[in-house]
């Protein structure tokens, strides 16, 4: 297992939330939406201009900007 920021993950890749590094409003929003450590998710896709990113987590789809996805560290299978 390796820990990578969400921004570096590719479409279709699965991961587990390792840590949310933001505090304040953005941090709270992410936590409220259920992005707490240990939660599995999958990268659903990226918008036509590569930003924002959409992830499937807890049976819903959430989109967040790349700048916001930088606050999320994910555990993934070793990247090849």
């Amino acid at each position, binding site marked *: 297992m390796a820990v990578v920021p969400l921004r570096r993950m590719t479409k279709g890749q699965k991961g587990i939330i390792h*840590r*949310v590094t933001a*505090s304040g*409003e*953005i*941090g*709270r*929003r*992410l*936590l*409220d*939406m*259920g992005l*707490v*450590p240990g*939660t599995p998710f999958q990268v*659903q*896709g990226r*918008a*036509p*201009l*590569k*930003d*924002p990113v*959409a992830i*499937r987590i*807890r*049976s*819903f*789809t*959430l*989109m*967040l*900007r790349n700048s*916001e996805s930088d606050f999320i560290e994910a555990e993934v299978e070793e990247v090849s």
Partner: protein
Amino acid sequence: MNPHRETMIALAGNPNCGKTTLFNAITGARQHVGNYPGITVEKKEGYCQVNGRHIQLVDLPGTYSLTAYSLEELVARNFLIQDRPSAVINIVDSSNLERNLYLTIQLLELGIPVLVALNMVDMAAARGLAINSEELGRRLRLPVIPTVARTGKGKEALLEAAAQLGQEDAVWEPLHISYGPDIDPVLDTMEAQIRAAAFFTDSLPARWTALKYLEADEEVIRKGKEKNPVLSSKLIELAEQVTQHLQKTLDSYPEAIIADHRYGFIAALLKEGVVKHSHKADRLYLTDQIDRVLTNRFLGPILMMLIIFAAYKFTFTYSKAPVAWLEAGFSALGRFADSSLPPGPLKSLIVSGVIDGVGGVLGFVPLILFMFFAIAFLEDTGYLARVAYMLDRIFRTFGLHGSSVMAYIISGGIAGGCAVPGVLATRTLRSSRERLATLLTAPFMNCGAKVPVFAMLIAAFFSAKQAQVMFLLTILSWAAALLIAKLIRSTILRGPSTPFLLELPPYRMPTFKGLLIHTWERAWQYIRKAGTIILAISIIFWALMSFPALPETEKKIYDEARASILAGGEATQGAGLTARLQAVDSEEAQATLKNSIAGRIGSGLTVITAANGFDWRINVALLSGIAAKEVIISTMGTAYSLGQSRRGEDTPLSNRLAADVSWSPLKAFSLIIFIMLYAPCMATITCIIRESTWKWGLFSFTFNTVTAFIISALVYRGGVWLGLG
């Protein structure tokens, strides 16, 4: 308890959980939309009866949580605390239990009596999810009732349970959950101190207040400081210690630990025997399939343009006929008043002030109805979220939001829209700074009322390249709106962009009833509120352009001219006679206009507008254009003594200007730029005020006019300097 008293019940739930649909299913047309005092968050109330008992339902804003970060959440929270409804119906999306129950937990921690409406159980079943609602209810110790809001299934059972719960006069019994070994001890200490000092304990559970101190909730801490500064700073200190401890030992902070434990609590709640998965076709699977096309890198943007264009076409095509009927109706009414009232200022007031003014407001109504219908459809199906998803990257560059595009397009981003529904369309934006910047810049688009004015000027001065110039103007208006949005967002509305974090909801077919209710309530608000203000302003404009009347000595000159034409008229043909009489009437109208307050203001402003090449005629036309942009043509017609030309009959004016040596393509272009950018029409300003505050309305009036003046003057002076004049 008196059974005749109204029981107040609040509806709470996440966005996209079907809350509004359920609210509509329960209350039907018996609802009232207003605003919470002083802010623009909508407050919806409805009424219904259960077993002869009157129930007042309050639909709280859709929220994921109850923090102090957003206005919606604050409004929902404060309503629950201050108005203390008898019970809360918490609507929960069955296919998305974990995240939806996160709000439930927070409601329970507040202590308020809650019952859960397990909504969209049909959708969950279609996804292979079976939920044991009785078991869930037993574990949560509250009634859980399965519902399907779209069909109204389960609403009677829900209401009966709610009325029952509301009747019990229950004491608020807050839920206690454990937040682990780091938080719990300090939470207990804080709770004891709060209890001892009776700190907000009349309205709030002590543990809840303690939790909010740990979460560093600005609102609670601010109020706490006012109430008991000593205890408040003690609590802050305790919270600070925990924060530092967590930082050192776990590299975390209280809010994260708290959220973590809430989700842990939910996971335990749903374990073993509440949710049963059977692997059937997934509704999200269908949504994924649709998204594969609709948000595809290449197809997505193309289809988006087509869909937005279709919504735009729908709005403006289908509203054309009813708008024309209303216009015909009002002009018939005008003619009737014209022929049945004695001549004089009263007749002029009723015809030009009241009927034209009210007609101007009601003329927009079909447009607004169709536009809201189209937007409600795009919003309720879930497509609008995809538009925001695809366009956010571009709009964010200018400090806006992906959802801003809708407001721009409706306002005239494709030439011919209208800023009134455009400004109202900004309601789909949830972040305040981006929303304000959007509604302030949307009026720069070339709306349907500016287009005929541009067309007249283009016909006069750029007749060889009409289409190209029109296209250039569309591009210019987009550039102006985006750049000025950027300017506003980096000065007066400076600040980081609000977190995006939008849910991409599964595609759903909205109910027709829901769409109609949605559409009508917004249109009705417009008619009621905008109507009164616009009527008042149009009377003011009428007065400005009619008073003071021409002095008797001047009037006499025109009367004599008419008399002499009539006296010598026996020799001339009938048609020639009318034409000569009309010419005198037009001369008189011009003189009246020039003599009026508006005319004098126009003349006075030439000191400034000389920089743009504008004389008193243009100034007074621009002044009248603040009432409504299409009026510019008819006022210019009067000012050039061409008589009252109606819309669509602007060829004489166009020819007249083309032949005028004081005009040049450069002057026409600087005028076009001015009209594109200056103060929005009063209908739009009224809507801006309604959607924000009167200060922003005033701001948009002054700021836009100053911007228009500067840019148009630069264009004109620059052109003259280059020898183009």
